[in-house]
């Protein structure tokens, strides 16, 4: 008797294993087209990024709830704040504790490595068979295929397109015009004029409060994720002819690389970087940069800048209209874009140019544990529908978004007490794969609040973009592995040394040693790999 029980128990354990390999879509009433996607509700476990402004759990956001009702797919979100994304994602991938999909901007290294290791599943067939909306987007922008295809020929990730005109530049450098007017000065044309202007900002009690509390240049390196890319005075680099930025945040592709006459150049090893840093040291020594630049975080700097009376002369931010609401705060118009100037001997300032602005290559990948890849694909496809993209990126139609008779959607102003972004994040989780294309913004989805930044870019930045730029092509897993190791060490060295040179000087004496150190850490190898990739992509 006992023996029979054991045999039956063993069979009962083994049999389900035979069914596990096949997709289970059929058993839940999957529909190839139309909504709902499934008859019986299905749950997907998705890893996503939680923004600082998200106050509610994702499943309480109106847009998320609407799509759950529409598609009958329930999402079990793993919500992770930006500062912990790298760590948590790496841990999950390393310990094989995989969600059904990662819906965060995956770095190239992850896409290529985990794609090759078959942790991420190829999706090109899913796109062909189940995603009509995404196919329409691809038809409009065929570069997406090249952009997302890994060296082994598979596509592992969905792209996210946010082609708003304001996405083309990371930071807008603004200067406080009322102070310039008080001094009777106009925009500086050279580095010397800029220096003199900053000294004048500092010494003349321009905010009229009787205290010497004016800080000519705002800067916050206390946090590298937000403070460094946004607030560093990159225009100093541009003035010396160096079109480069931040030393590699996870948000953008490596931005300290640019291309000159077909050669890939690493900005922090260039002679012009040396000159720019020496100039920054000059500014620092004269007390013209925020003295707490190296301990303040972006949030702290932002709070300080919002206070009255005004203390910052030059303020670099993502979007000045996010900081000061136009119409409500006069400073939105008073902080005007700084016109770029040049150093002696430089013909024109070179402004950093993003490859494929607004395009994220690896915005969502499905893992091998996903039992419902077709269902997931169809769920994602809803976000590529034009109105789906609008809703996911800005809020619900009928709530924050208003659709008129012609199908044009506009964004409502925030209610009293909320900023634009707070209102947006109370409605939706915008960090998902979607396609808010330029065409959409120009026709059915005008965004005047954001377009103001776009106009600033058109006027002051776009004319100064170089023709060549580092396009950040995807490379093989072996290459990416080497680059990954080198990049971490190189980046730490550059940040550390640059900070020292800005505050203490000494760049002339230490420059050659620094170059030697970079080489020891693998810089020349890194350049060789990237040059080869650039040449391949541009054949």
């Amino acid at each position: 008797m006992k023996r029979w029980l054991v045999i039956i128990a063993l069979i009962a354990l083994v049999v389900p294993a035979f069914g596990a390999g096949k997709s289970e879509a059929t058993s839940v009433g999957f529909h190839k087209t139309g909504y709902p996607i499934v008859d019986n509700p299905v749950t997907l476990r998705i890893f996503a990024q939680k923004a600082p402004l998200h106050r509610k759990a994702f499943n309480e956001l109106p847009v998320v709830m609407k799509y759950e009702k529409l598609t009958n797919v329930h999402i079990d979100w793993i919500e992770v704040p930006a500062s912990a994304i790298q760590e948590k994602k790496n841990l999950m991938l390393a310990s094989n504790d995989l969600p059904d999909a990662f819906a965060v901007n995956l770095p190239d290294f992850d896409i290529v490595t985990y794609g090759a290791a078959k942790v991420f599943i190829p999706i090109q067939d899913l796109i062909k068979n189940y995603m009509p909306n995404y196919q329409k987007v691809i038809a409009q922008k065929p570069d997406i295929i090249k952009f997302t295809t890994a060296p082994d020929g598979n596509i592992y990730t969905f792209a996210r397109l946010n082609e708003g005109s304001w996405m083309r530049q990371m930071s807008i450098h603004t200067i406080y015009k009322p102070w310039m007017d008080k001094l009777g000065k106009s925009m500086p044309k050279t580095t010397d004029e800029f220096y003199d202007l900053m000294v004048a900002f500092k010494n003349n009690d321009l905010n009229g409060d009787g205290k010497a509390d004016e800080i000519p240049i705002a800067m916050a390196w206390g946090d590298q994720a937000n403070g460094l890319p946004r607030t560093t005075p990159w225009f100093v680099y541009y003035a010396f002819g160096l079109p480069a930025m931040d030393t590699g945040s996870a948000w953008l592709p490596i931005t300290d690389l640019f291309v000159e006459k077909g050669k890939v150049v690493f900005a922090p090893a260039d002679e012009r970087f040396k000159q720019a840093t020496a100039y920054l040291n000059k500014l620092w020594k004269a007390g013209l940069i925020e003295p707490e630049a190296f301990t303040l975080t972006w949030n702290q700097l932002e709070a300080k800048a919002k206070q009255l009376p005004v203390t910052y002369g030059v303020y670099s931010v993502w979007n000045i209209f996010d900081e000061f609401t136009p119409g409500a705060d006069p400073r939105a118009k008073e902080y005007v874009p700084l016109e770029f100037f040049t150093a002696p001997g430089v013909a024109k300032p070179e402004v950093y140019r993003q490859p494929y602005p607004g395009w994220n290559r690896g915005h969502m990948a499905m893992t091998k544990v996903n039992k419902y890849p077709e269902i997931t694909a169809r769920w994602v496809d809803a976000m590529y529908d034009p109105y789906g993209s609008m809703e996911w990126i800005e809020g619900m139609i009928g709530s924050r978004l208003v659709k008129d008779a012609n199908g044009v959607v506009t964004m409502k102003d925030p209610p009293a007490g909320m900023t634009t972004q707070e209102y947006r994040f109370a409605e939706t989780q915008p960090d998902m794969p979607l396609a808010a294309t330029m065409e959409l913004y120009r026709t059915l989805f005008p965004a005047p609040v954001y377009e103001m930044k776009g106009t600033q870019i058109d006027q002051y930045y776009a004319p100064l973009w170089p023709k060549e730029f580092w396009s950040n092509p995807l490379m093989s897993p072996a290459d990416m592995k080497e680059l990954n190791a080198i990049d971490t060490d190189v980046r730490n060295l550059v940040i550390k040394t640059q900070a020292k040179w800005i505050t203490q000087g000494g760049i002339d004496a230490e420059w050659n040693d620094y170059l030697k150190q970079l080489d020891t850490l693998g810089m020349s190898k890194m350049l060789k790999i990237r040059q080869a990739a650039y040449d391949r992509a541009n054949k």
Partner: protein
Amino acid sequence: MSSNVVSPSASRQHRRGFFERASRAWQLYLFLLPTLIYFVLFHYGPLYGAQIAFRDYLGALGIWGSPWVGLTNFQRFFESSLFVSLLWNTLSLSLLMLVFSFPMPVIFALMLNQIGNQGYKRLVQTVSYAPHFISMVVFVGIMFLFTSPSAGIINIFMSKLGLPRISYMANLAWFRPVYVLSDIWQETGWAAIIYLAALSGINPELYEAATIDGATKFQKILHIDIPAILPTVTIMLVLRAGTIMSVGFEKAFLMQTALNLDYSEIISTYVYKVGLLGAQFSFGSAVGLFNSVVNLILLLVVNRVARTIGETSLW
């Protein structure tokens, strides 16, 4: 002669004696069992994962499926230009803590013990160990606020005295002093508790005898108090030695700014950046393993030395 020979019957008796004793005190062993299981499961069990340091680990392949690379990761670490600075940063912080932060609780306990007024003594003690309960994140946040050149009380105080304002957290030379001094502030009161406990166990007759002999207060401390807490101090020192290489990751990491990285990048923060953030798990494990092995060797050496010199040791 015969005393050197252990008769067979005696050894059998000895062995039987142990089990007999054990079975009679089985409740005590039962008490011990959960902790034992905890250590085996969570501390000894996972040790098999340390082999990641010898492999080229990729999560998808699992630990056993990842290729074996032997000592490549260790080699890469030792040959890296950062090796010496990481090692020296870690060691110097530990040694500074040992020299400055370790004796403070002892001195503090000795002084506190001399206070006659019990109410005042208890007040001082409570106030002194309050900072221990502040979490490290909050504590470092407080430090940033206190040392801020524009609004921090330290700098405001300094400027009133006519001294220049210094941004302590963004200053390389100040990193180590700030690290050690803040540790003294946070931990002295708490660490002194164990020494106070040892001091309270001293027989009061010793003091009376010393008074009769005409000893001064200082001589009493020197000849009664210090010998009494010396065993405790030795044990604490040996325990401390075992953690020399694991200088607080949290504190160093939170205190890091672009300007003090030369001193604040220690082995554990490097392992975090490279191993976890940079997803180089094998390399990170190798560095961490190296760290632990050095710790173990130091612990064994210091324990041996303590045993030889003072007869007090961990084992």
